[in-house]
């Protein structure tokens, strides 16, 4: 089976966010594989172990994205592809990324493409479905179980807490939700092997794309931090009094009761 994973690097979840000149400060930030993409990598490896084939991890990013690709290789992926847009594109959006991936995938004959259901930074969840649509294959988002038997694919999809049991067939694109699996940590031998696994680097030029073909359809005009919240009030005194005070505050000050 020809399995692909779409991967994005994101800020570590513990990273503090600072903004200057309408941009997120990224100097010295720690990056990780987007946590939802980690489920995708894990699931790809599990499906390969069950059905054979090859796992290729693809990212649209910059030079530094190699680190997260190597981590995915250390987990057990076979090959990695870095589509480096650093020198060609200033600001991309989900249209940009999906278009680049579409062009990359056009001659690939993928059986299964896995992605995270959302990236924890920009959190739009668009790229997976956009890519599937442009490749003309079905997609199922927020999956929590995946079972493949021949060409038949059985999926559990999380729909705001309900579970849909869905049947479809290969090729398909799925986006992974928490609960699908427990991603493994790369082993030491895995890390050693990952250094020698193939990592192909492409630029949009190699995909015969011009800058204007992938020009963003949306503009980010500003980024700002939420207004600093006034320090909350921790009530004091006997619990009975605190509860009375709380209800009075909610009713009279906050006016939510």
């Amino acid at each position, binding site marked *: 089976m020809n399995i692909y994973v779409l991967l994005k690097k994101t800020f570590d979840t513990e990273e503090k966010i600072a903004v200057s000149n309408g941009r997120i400060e990224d100097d010295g930030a720690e990056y990780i594989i987007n946590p939802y993409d980690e489920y995708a990598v894990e699931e790809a490896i599990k499906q390969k172990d069950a059905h054979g084939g090859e796992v290729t991890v693809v990212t649209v990013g910059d030079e530094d994205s190699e680190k997260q690709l190597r981590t995915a290789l250390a987990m057990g992926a076979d090959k990695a592809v870095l589509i480096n847009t650093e020198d060609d594109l200033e600001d991309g959006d989900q249209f940009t990324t999906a278009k680049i991936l579409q062009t990359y995938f056009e001659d690939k004959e993928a059986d299964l493409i896995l992605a995270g259901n959302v990236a924890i930074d920009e959190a739009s969840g668009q790229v997976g479905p956009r890519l599937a649509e442009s490749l003309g294959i079905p997609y199922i988002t927020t999956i929590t179980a995946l079972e493949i038997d021949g060409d038949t694919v059985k999926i559990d999809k999380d729909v705001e807490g*309900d579970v849909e049991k869905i049947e479809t067939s290969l090729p398909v694109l799925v986006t992974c939700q928490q609960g699908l699996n427990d991603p493994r940590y790369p082993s030491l031998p895995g890390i050693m092997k990952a250094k020698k696994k193939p990592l192909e680097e492409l630029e949009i030029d190699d995909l015969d794309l011009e800058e204007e073909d992938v020009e963003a359809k949306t503009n980010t005009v500003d980024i700002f931090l939420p207004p600093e919240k006034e320090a909350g009030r921790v009530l004091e005194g006997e*619990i009975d009094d605190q509860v009375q005070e709380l209800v009075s505050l909610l009713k009279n000050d906050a006016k939510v009761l």
Partner: protein
Amino acid sequence: MSDKLLVIGEARDGVLRNVTFEAIAAAKKINSDGEIVGVLCGNDDLDTQAQEMIYYGADRVVTVQHDELEAYTSEGYGQAILPVIDDESPNGIIMGHTAIGKDLTPKLASKLETGLISDATEIEVEGDKAVFIRPIYSGKAFEKKTISSGLTFATIRPNNIPALERDESRSGDVNTKEVDIANIRTVIKEVIRKASEGVDLSEANVIIAGGRGVKSEEGFKPLYELADVLGGAVGASRGACDAEYCDYALQIGQTGKVVTPDLYIAVGISGAIQHLAGMSNSKVIVAINKDPESNIFNVADYGIVGDLFDVVPKLIEEVKKLK
């Protein structure tokens, strides 16, 4: 300013979700003089729902009725809505950022080769441009986005943009669009309902959420009672779901639901960043926790340090006195 905006409506158990009306209000904000056209899909009679959209501000509604639209699939809805978009050639499309909205809109955007701004919580109009404000980095920052070319296409987060007043004196045409739907490759075999009946968590005005501190399924009972007297819904942290105190359908946070109620009462929740991502935009946050060092107190407007099993029953009694 644009001439026509489509609002894609969404129903749950035959009743339109509130976010549909909020999407109409959002469209009105972007396009105060233009025409607002509602779109509804289903396998049943949609006239009542269409009327509701008109009462809430739509000028007219196009309904698409087909056996294949009984349950939502991206393929079915895509084939139903794209011909309507084609007929109407709107300047913009607005929908709720719900499970269906998240799933469907990227498909439409890809087909239409257009931009899409997902999960907006606020809309400002500057000159003739709509500026969408949306949370990024789990709500730790916000970005302002505009569409640079093509359709003004956006999804809005439920419970953030107030719906307009319902006005039964409004009237408008309801037209039916006939479509062919074929070649559906994804088949829903079964739906296991877990989400609780009653108040929809993402649309609730009051949420009482329990964490690991609630200690057991039994421990959630007082939370339900408090929700009951406040007319709210019960939610939970991932920790409480993992510990099987309640179902994952109640989970609030990055993985679960993102909520923005007027009042959020966090009970026995420590306040991990993943949880905060799902609730930190709530208008008023109350934290009840016995650990004064809990992170939840950093986002709370009011805090009570104490044993929840002591505090919650007292709170129920005190709220009852108001009635």
